[in-house]
């Protein structure tokens, strides 16, 4: 064991305005899991993209199985046995699960002229059985939730039987049970001698499955440590180079505050059944549940993003008619979507426009001109406040790292200054330091009298942050827990309380 499989030395890569990597090194051994950690924008994804031929390095060497190699494109990487699960979903939405997994490697029949769809689906099914995930090969990817799409990505990367497997935040969209499945898979792969590079912002995972940890900061190599011989605190201080915000939050009692949002008998097909709950002023209300429980659906329904079949929504005691997101925003509701690429970002616009877009009324003169200066000032404030890593506020947002994009989207809703904020997976893909910042921010907002719904699949986060927790299962609310009696076990009990006798 532990022969060196891959070595990257002195890797540098610059983009216009950003030196993403400077003289980075990395060593991966066969049969180990190497964690690659660092704050948002540290250069983790970029380094891996250099390795898989998506970007070309400016300088440095890659030594793979003892030979120096060039990786001109992804195909070359695959042929070498290096594959990657990308941080951003990279699936063809209009193809099925199986078609996506075997794209470029379709089984053929009839002298290689025709596709063998049957064989394709069988191969996919066999793969799913081997790695124990529940996916239907014939389902269209566009019909899948983010979490399931992530599983498809994972299955696809595994199907290559690679010697080096890179996972860029594979668990960001997964719930605990799926994470367990993934970790089982990782253990098996390790036993087969596969080297895994594992990128994650979830510190508790590192202890569970990694052997060594390489830390990066601001595009530079900080060091590599053995997981067993180090503490999370040590890693965090290597990552950020400073003290971070203490996450224990003083929970202010909001139990007797007035109700700002009252949702009554909300129904939407089979996805939402009789949703009833109340949100109080200054409260952080957690929404927990398994993947596909319908939490996102609730948020979208309240926000007017999807039409509802029936139900009433009261804001500050008044019945409101929300037909579209613009109605919702006018009633003081803001919604941070879980899928930022599809629903959150104006991809080729700059940071400041992304921050301003929900609040254009405030940035508009009476004649319809934009108050460009005001936009700049507010955007700069937001970027400073949230510590967004970007060269300027004029940078196109697609060029920011994933976590920094998330911060900008949060900044959009903070700028809008809504009274009710729905955060759907707000810390997805965000580094520990920034997570702390966001927790601090949520608490601040609550103490300023804002009401917050926080949907999250990270149970510790839900438990730590929420004043109350609502648990959903299969489109119903199955339980409500107060801060005192919330525990992982209690949440899981409700989250799996399926409706069995409804026909």
């Amino acid at each position: 064991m532990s022969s060196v499989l891959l070595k990257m030395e002195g890797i540098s890569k610059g983009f216009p305005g950003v030196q993403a990597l400077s003289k980075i090194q990395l060593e991966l051994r066969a049969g180990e899991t190497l964690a690659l950690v660092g704050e948002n924008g540290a250069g983790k994804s970029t380094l891996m993209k250099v390795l898989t031929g998506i970007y070309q390095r400016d300088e440095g060497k890659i030594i793979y199985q003892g030979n120096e190699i060039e990786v001109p494109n992804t195909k070359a990487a695959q042929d070498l046995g290096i594959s990657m699960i990308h941080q951003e979903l990279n699936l063809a939405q209009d193809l099925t699960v199986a078609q996506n997994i075997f794209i470029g490697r379709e089984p053929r029949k009839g002298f290689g002229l025709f596709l063998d769809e049957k064989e394709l689906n069988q191969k996919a099914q066999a793969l799913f059985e081997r790695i124990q995930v529940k996916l239907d090969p014939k389902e269209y990817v566009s019909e899948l939730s983010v979490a399931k799409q992530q599983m498809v990505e994972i299955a696809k990367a595994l199907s290559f039987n690679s010697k080096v497997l890179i996972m860029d935040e594979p668990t960001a969209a997964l719930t605990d049970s799926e994470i367990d499945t993934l970790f089982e898979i990782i253990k098996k792969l390790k036993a087969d001698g596969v080297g895994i590079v594992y990128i994650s912002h979830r510190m508790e995972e590192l202890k569970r499955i990694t052997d060594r940890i390489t830390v990066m900061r601001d595009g530079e190599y900080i060091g590599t440590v053995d997981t067993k011989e180090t503490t999370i605190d040590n890693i965090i201080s290597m990552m950020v180079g400073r003290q971070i915000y203490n996450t224990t939050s003083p929970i202010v009692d909001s139990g007797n505050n007035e109700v700002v949002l009252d949702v009554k008998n909300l129904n939407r097909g089979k996805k939402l059944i009789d949703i009833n709950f109340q949100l109080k002023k200054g409260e952080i209300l957690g929404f927990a549940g398994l993947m596909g429980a319908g939490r996102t659906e609730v948020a979208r329904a309240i926000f007017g993003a999807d039409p509802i079949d029936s139900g009433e929504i009261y804001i500050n005691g008044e019945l409101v008619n929300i037909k579209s997101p613009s109605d919702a925003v006018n009633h003081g509701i803001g919604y941070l979507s879980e899928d930022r690429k599809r629903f959150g970002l104006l991809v080729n616009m700059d940071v400041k426009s992304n921050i301003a877009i929900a609040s254009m009324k405030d940035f508009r003169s009476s004649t319809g001109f934009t108050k460009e200066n005001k936009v700049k000032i507010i955007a700069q404030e937001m970027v400073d406040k949230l510590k967004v890593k970007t060269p300027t506020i004029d940078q196109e947002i697609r060029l920011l790292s994933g976590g920094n994009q998330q911060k900008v989207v949060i900044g959009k809703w903070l700028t809008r200054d809504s009274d009710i904020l729905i955060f759907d997976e707000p810390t997805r893909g965000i580094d520990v330091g920034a997570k702390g910042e966001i927790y601090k921010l949520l608490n601040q907002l609550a103490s300023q009298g804002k009401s917050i719904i926080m949907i999250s699949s990270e149970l510790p986060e839900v438990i730590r942050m929420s004043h109350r927790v609502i648990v959903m299962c299969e489109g119903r609310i199955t339980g409500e827990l107060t801060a005192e009696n919330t525990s992982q076990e209690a949440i899981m009990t409700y989250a799996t309380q399926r409706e069995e006798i409804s026909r």
Partner: protein
Amino acid sequence: MRLPIRSGALQQVLAFASLIVLILFFSLASPNFFQFSNIVGILLSTSVIGILALGVTFVIITGGIDLSVGTAMTLCSVMTGVFITFWGFPTPLGVVLGILFGAFAGFLSGLAVAKMKIPPFIATLAVMMIAKGLALVISGTKPIYFSDTPEFSQIALGTIIPGLAIPNAVWIFLIMAIFGYIVLSKTVIGRYTFALGSNEEATRLSGVNVNRWKIIIYSIAGLFTGVAGVLMASRLNSAQPALGLGYELEAIAAVVIGGTSLSGGKGTMIGTVIGALIMSVLTNGLRILSVPQEWQTVVVGIVIILAVYADILRRQKA
């Protein structure tokens, strides 16, 4: 209304209902409409635009567009005339070369799009102009007649099944539709067509040689253009060098009416066939009703909106 169709594919093609409604309407409005010879006439007049539309369907599913098909078709007609009439090649050889010339034109568009990274709209607009000019230059701005090869006009207008007065052009349209369907649904080419339109970047990251497949797909679309060109020449028994401009919009309209999305990733061949039929039933029906010509375009415009809107409503309900 109960339709005599059970196939899942057909039910997806929502435009089908609009076609039925149109046919019913015109049949009731004029006894001359639902006559064998008129229906054959409609099918015949659908054939050329229909075949162009089949080819364009591939390109549109990749998320591209092909504005060159109209004039490229004309250039193929002219080249067929050059091969057969000017150079005296045997008719079958001339026909095959004419069709391959279409594939070659598609290949060039594909090259511009894939290798030079020129947006499809601009690349094919340029090819449209180049083809238009070349058709005039090569033909000497005069029609090329196939006077010495009477068999040539039989390609479109002969009848392969004796006693059944259905011209070959209709069968050729049918064959090309089936060919298009097979390529799109059953082969790797079709798979990559959808994959490119769905998420080109993801396809590339999966190690697919995106450029090569794009060129192949444009070449196949060009093959259809070539067939349309030969058919057009055969039907007119001459290569008309000034024809073709504007056909690209008709073809694209047929594709989109048939439910193929211009943003790529979605589409069917049967949809395109139905879209093309809607267009020609409409034109023919209005002519049969002797609607004044200036009103015809107005009505066609309105019907297109309504047909597509009806689909959208049905899709929303579904």
